[in-house]
């Protein structure tokens, strides 16, 4: 029997497992595939404040500091680069959007200020000079998301976590004061359980007869071949639908939440023609030098979103000993710190910053959620 079973080996689950093991718990981490191969390994790795929801800025700021210091606490490199971030406005409407959003994020604590096109061009010489203005944040940067699995695996091993990859959990039931987890071969028991299944949190919560719709976004990304330096910042546009950065080895990753297609029932997801072309056009408009590159790969990954697009992090109501963590918008950035706070609660301490209990999404007056009903899907922003 384990002190803690973590179900889902993405960045949330891996971080909670790591911190809990370092806190003295005997931890097993269960993952249906390989560690950090879904959203946590396929996202753009952006560690930005300018695409983070205002309510999450305080967490993201703490987490950004953690990412920059990853070699110290994680012990392994995920290729973090800290740099300036710019969000661009090319139209009057975007200027308005930019000032509104920069204002709200700045009020939440992000060091974001509006700059003229001349200042923006000084900060990022590669930018399209036709910009009208930009918002600048000195705290920005990126990690190499595909290294997440490798870095965490090494850290988890060092911390003594039992890693079980390719081990899908198919059920969870309370048995006295402990929990039994159903696995393909034989089950395991644990005193406490954390569900960190990303978009699969919805089916996981159903094991406990809790119906909480989690919308599945299919984000798509593209990468160019290695090229000479074309930019030095993390770049976005006011709407948030572009994220652009050049990695030290020369490739440029193009993202921003353009939607591919797919669903979590089959687990399949793929890019679309329109999103690939649209996203590439936006990227070339922002950094004209990208015109001379070649696109070598596009890919997609799931992102989970609750009805209010805010996280569910905390105890599962009615099931003491079961915890949940996920649906954190821009979750990759904030994950290590949010996991740190949740682990404090699991270890019986007061979390440094408030969690995001899921109770708010389970109001008893609401009709029972049916994940397959189209009406239900339209409720989400």
């Amino acid at each position, binding site marked *: 029997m384990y002190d803690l079973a973590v179900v889902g080996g993405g960045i949330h689950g891996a971080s909670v497992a790591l911190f809990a093991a370092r806190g003295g718990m005997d931890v097993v981490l269960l993952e249906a595939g390989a560690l950090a191969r879904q959203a946590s390994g396929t996202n753009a790795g952006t560690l930005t404040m300018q695409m983070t929801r205002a309510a999450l800025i305080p967490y993201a700021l703490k987490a950004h500091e953690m990412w920059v210091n990853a070699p110290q606490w994680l012990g392994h490199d995920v290729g973090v680069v800290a740099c300036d971030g710019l969000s661009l406005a090319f139209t009057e409407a975007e200027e308005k959007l930019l000032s509104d959003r920069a204002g*709200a994020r700045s009020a939440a604590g992000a060091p974001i200020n509006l700059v003229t096109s001349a200042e923006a061009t000084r900060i990022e010489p590669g930018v399209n000079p036709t910009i009208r203005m930009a918002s600048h944040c000195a705290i920005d940067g990126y990690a190499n998301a595909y290294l997440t699995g490798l870095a965490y695996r090494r850290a988890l091993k060092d911390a003594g976590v039992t890693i079980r990859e390719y081990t899908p959990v198919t059920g969870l039931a309370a048995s006295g004061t402990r929990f039994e987890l159903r696995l393909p071969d034989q089950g395991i028991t644990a005193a406490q359980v954390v569900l960190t299944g990303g978009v699969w949190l919805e089916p996981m919560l159903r094991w406990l007869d809790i119906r909480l719709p989690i919308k599945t976004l299919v984000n798509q990304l593209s990468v160019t071949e290695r090229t000479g330096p074309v930019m030095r910042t993390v770049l976005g546009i006011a709407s*948030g639908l572009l994220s652009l950065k050049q990695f030290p080895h020369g490739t440029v990753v193009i993202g921003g939440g353009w939607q591919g297609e797919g669903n979590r029932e089959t687990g399949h997801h793929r890019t679309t023609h329109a999103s690939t072309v649209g996203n590439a056009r936006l990227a070339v408009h922002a950094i004209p030098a990208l015109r001379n*590159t070649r*696109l*070598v790969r596009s890919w997609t990954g799931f992102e989970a979103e609750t009805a209010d697009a805010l996280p569910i992090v905390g105890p599962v109501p009615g099931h003491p000993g079961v915890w949940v963590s996920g649906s954190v918008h821009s979750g990759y950035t904030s994950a290590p710190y949010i996991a740190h706070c949740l682990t404090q609660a699991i270890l019986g301490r007061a979390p440094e910053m408030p969690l995001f209990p899921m109770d708010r999404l389970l109001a008893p007056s609401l009709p029972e959620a049916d994940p397959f009903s189209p009406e239900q899907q339209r409720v989400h922003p």
Partner: protein
Amino acid sequence: MTTAFDLLVIGAGPAGGNAALEAASAGLTVALIDEGTAAGGQVWRAPRTAQATRNRTQDPDRTRGDDLRARLAASSVRVFPATQVWDARPQFHISCVSDDGAQELHAPRLILATGAIERVLPFEGWTTPGVFGLAAATAVMKSEKALFGRDIVIAGQGPLLIAVAAKALDLGLRPRAIIDRSHRGDWLRATAGFARVPSMLATGARWMSRLALAGIPYHRRSEVIRANGDTTLRSVVIRDLGTGATREIEADTLYIGNGLTSADELHRLLGAAQTADLLRGGYRTTRDDRCRSSVPGLYIAGDGGGVYGALPSAMQGKIAGLSAACDHGALCETQFAAQVRGPQRKLRRLETFADASCRLMQFPQDATPRMSPQTIVCRCEDVSRADIEKAMDDGARDLNQLKHFTRLGMGPCQGRMCGLTAAAILSHRHAGSGTDTRLTPRSPVRPVEMTQLIGEFDYDDIPVPKPAPL
């Protein structure tokens, strides 16, 4: 411009060209897409230079190519030349680019005739400038009637070895040596299969005797273990597979190939079922005797679905074209049966020939464990055998993990050159563990020029979706 057709055919080589012609003559509207500027594919390649065009010396591949191009020109097939397919979605939406920008073509049926790519068993120094593929040599000779290098060594295995050496001799380029992995016995065994197509056997025998008469040193049961040089090739070191004896041969150019494998990226993107098959180049896409894949409406012809060679591919193309026309309702079962009989009979005869040829070309899978630690496996990202071993020490069990841990397969070729070799190393360590030894297929299936992808556009016309929540 029309973008909807009854049938799309990708690849205008022997398979795709014939498939398009059969379907069009049955009355289907057909689009034939190829990245080359003219139909013909690799083997029936059209000449590019004036010198190559003038050269009409009894090359049956050239004659067959010219015939295919003439028949296409006289047909109703809509050819999209210099058009590169980069993605395919079910029920079939094909994304492609050309100098006109990006566009999507649509049809309820699709024939994939994407051909093969060459494999090379990595050895130390194989990324040195001056080392080329055998198939690359044939492509250059067909289109340019020329070959790079002065002191050339020709190495590898299979009929291409002899073909390239003999044609180099025709160009006045005397190979310094031929290095053949195969035994004399391997060739003798193949002769029985080759005899099923006497004209091909005769051509092969003529090449062999020409090389023997010219006194070109021929090293049997030998392999290249190292290419020396930095910015240019200086020499190659060869090793006798029997005795282990090595020797160094000075050369400025090495042509080397270890067989072919299917260019099956689109097959995999569309989810067509496959079977591991070393003889056919690694994997074969499952198809019935009418070339239908496991995906409804998707037909497979030619080497892209498993390597057979140009002539069987042409027959498979005809069958696939007739099969698509029949499923479309343009041919009744009786008409189909009558028309498909000829190609099917020829295909059966050619398959014995193909098997003999493929056996000689079969990739030396058992040689991968002997690769030295410093040998580069992924040449785009400089990932060595030792890097792969280290990633496996770190727990990489499948090919996607190997990619994440090392960047293997993340460069311009997207794992086409290294994927199967890395998989062989992985399988050697984790024999029988059943983990996934292929990379998840991704678009674009070939690198896409950004200018072609974005075309002409106005910023205001980019369909930017609703902003993310604040």
